[in-house]
């Protein structure tokens, strides 16, 4: 089991499990409603050409979020080496 890390610092292509998720803030509530919450698995698909925002795959669809939100989400990589 690998250690927790920020979603914003994940390597592209990594699958990860969401462990800690902020409780407050309308952005995080919306992310939850979009299906991202503790216990969800995600894949970091890519970052935008300028490094921000991020694109993740969650529950079978692709979602973008900015690093400013992603750095508050702690995840656990499930395959540390990208495929």
């Amino acid at each position: 089991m690998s250690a927790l890390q920020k979603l914003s610092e994940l390597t592209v292509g990594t699958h990860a499990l969401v462990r800690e998720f902020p409780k407050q803030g309308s952005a995080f509530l919306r992310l939850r409603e979009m299906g991202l919450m503790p216990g969800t698995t995600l894949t970091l698909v890519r970052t935008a050409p300028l490094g921000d925002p991020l694109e993740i795959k969650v529950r079978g669809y692709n979602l973008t979020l900015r690093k400013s939100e992603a750095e508050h989400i702690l995840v656990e990589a499930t395959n540390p080496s990208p495929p």
Partner: protein
Amino acid sequence: MSAETKSPVGTRTPPVYAFVGNPNCGKSTLFNALTGLKQKVGNYPGVTVEKKIGETYSQHGHPIKIIDLPGAYSLAARSPDEAVLRDVLLGRREDTPQPDRIVCILDASNLERNLYLVHQILDLGRPVILALNMMDLAAKAGLEIRVARLEKELGIPVIPCEAANGKGIVELRLAMSRTDLPLARHAWDVPAAIAPAVSELAASLHENDGKAPLSARAEALLLLTDQDTVRVTGSKPLHPRTCEIFRSWQKRWEGEGTDWAGTLVSSRYDAIGSLCSRILVRKTNLGPNVSDRIDQVVTHPVWGWLVLVGIMSLLFLSIFTLAEYPMNFIDARIAALGDWVKSAMPQGDLRNLITDGAIAGVGGVLVFLPQILILFLFIGLLESTGYMARAAFIMDRLMSRVGLNGRSFIPLLSSYACAIPGIMATRTIEDRKDRLTTILVAPLMSCSARLPVYLLMISALVPGERVPLLTKAGVMVLMYALGTFGAFGFAWLFKRTLLKGEPPLMIMELPPYRLPRVRDIAQHMAERAWMFLKNAGTVILAISIVLWFLSAYPKAPDGAPPSQQLAQSFAGRAGHALEPAIKPIGFDWQIGIGLITSLAAREVFVSTMGVVFNSEGADESTTPLRQSLLKAKWPDGRPLFTPLVCLTLMIFYVFAMQCMSTLVVVKRETASWRWPLFQVAYMTGTAWVVCFIVYQTGHLLGF
């Protein structure tokens, strides 16, 4: 089943269905397929959210009314679009009937997230039909959906469709024709931590706000995730007692550390997850799909930019050059019509009113149509293929520097051609404040109507008959840069002061790439064009007639040259009245007349200067007009159009709000006169201040 399933199908009032679904689920295609051209498109009063109501027929030929509600991810609204959806479904809007029944459209290839909204809607206790759209895409993605099982689990009709291929429409119509729509079996346990609060709130909503028991419970649940952040005009506020109960629970939870909203959302997703485990069979993973492969190029650090620049250049060039042909055609037709009326009618005020006022005014409105149509063709293509979201994804980082997000990029870019279609395109921006900021700064982008003014001034600026290409290009680039920096600077300022809000978000779905639907795009273009003609067009026409009147009256004695007529008209007098205000920036009353008449459209400045300085053939070429301008003098004999004044005048046109048509469209898009008036004040104010600094500094330096 219960009293609420009573259906008016077959009785006199047609039943009202609401079409509800996530963005990109194919809802509009389905709506168009059912209603065809029997649609009424308007606005919800007070907000700029499109209101679409259509009519179709049941299998027995009875009319059915359909409200196509805006796409949303949740009833907990985060944008005006979602707020309208929520308020219509909850019967909070007085201007729209509460729908009797709801058709939920789902993207079958993305079932889990699509079911979240459905889960909230089933709480409402109304008859619901599920339309599982894009079944073909789900199959392609290796998903098998047990439709019969889902129908059995929920106890409501579930219709598999492929709206884009016309499949499932008949079955959906059949289901909508049923008189006995059942209510969903929708038993799910509200988490224990928040259950007492939900019952207490539901009781108060029932007693104090007069809600039916089931919808009171739904609203109570909704309150936990929706603190009504997006209030829109036209919806009824809650009873103070209900608010009080909610606040006291909130306080208690905060003390205990209960994450009430999070608990509620996860319990919904838990219920959805367990449902999906029974109805969804995931076949082997097929690896990267077509969209993934396209995205590897389109959002690539190098190729991505090339694609973006390529598409945007094409968009820009089309608006700029392709629109020119129909625009010239319209101009020519209008001129021919004017000439025909001139030859057919006796000379007089009525003839002038018709030709110079009304016909010219209609021309001034129609001439915008080609640009609007081309822009919305592009926007329709970009939206429906899914590229729009990618463009926003790529541009977000740059736009975030000034506090906007990637969605503002296309409206701002389009404003280089003309601010009107650009402002009309801001509807794709979800956040109200981001949208307003974009609208406020869009007219600072140098539009094509400023070009004739720039060209005339550049020709007067440089000595010699021919302007060196490099000077011309250099000054042009300077003007465009000035406008662009101005727009971004003001966006930055507004987002920090006037329209300060939540930190901007970029939580956006990147939908799979799809082939565009020509019919949907064509319909959308037609709607936009009609909306412009109907709402903005009439006002623009009226203003054009007023401006014509101001320059045609009072009449000069017969035989006076046109310049004398203009000088003694209301516009001319206004120019005189304006002189004290514009003298500090180097302009005299004659330029003042141009500033007033060019409120109709900036390029009118050129023709006005032609009349003011008695230059024949000014419309044809700038050369004779340039000569006349250079001969113009102040009463004390100083030349009027010094290079410094020409430069100042260009800068004035960069910043000043010199376009009534834009103001009318801004009024239309912001639903109030407050914002267009603010725009006049800040833009023209900035123009004056910048010109003052430039002119006075230049003057001191001896130019």
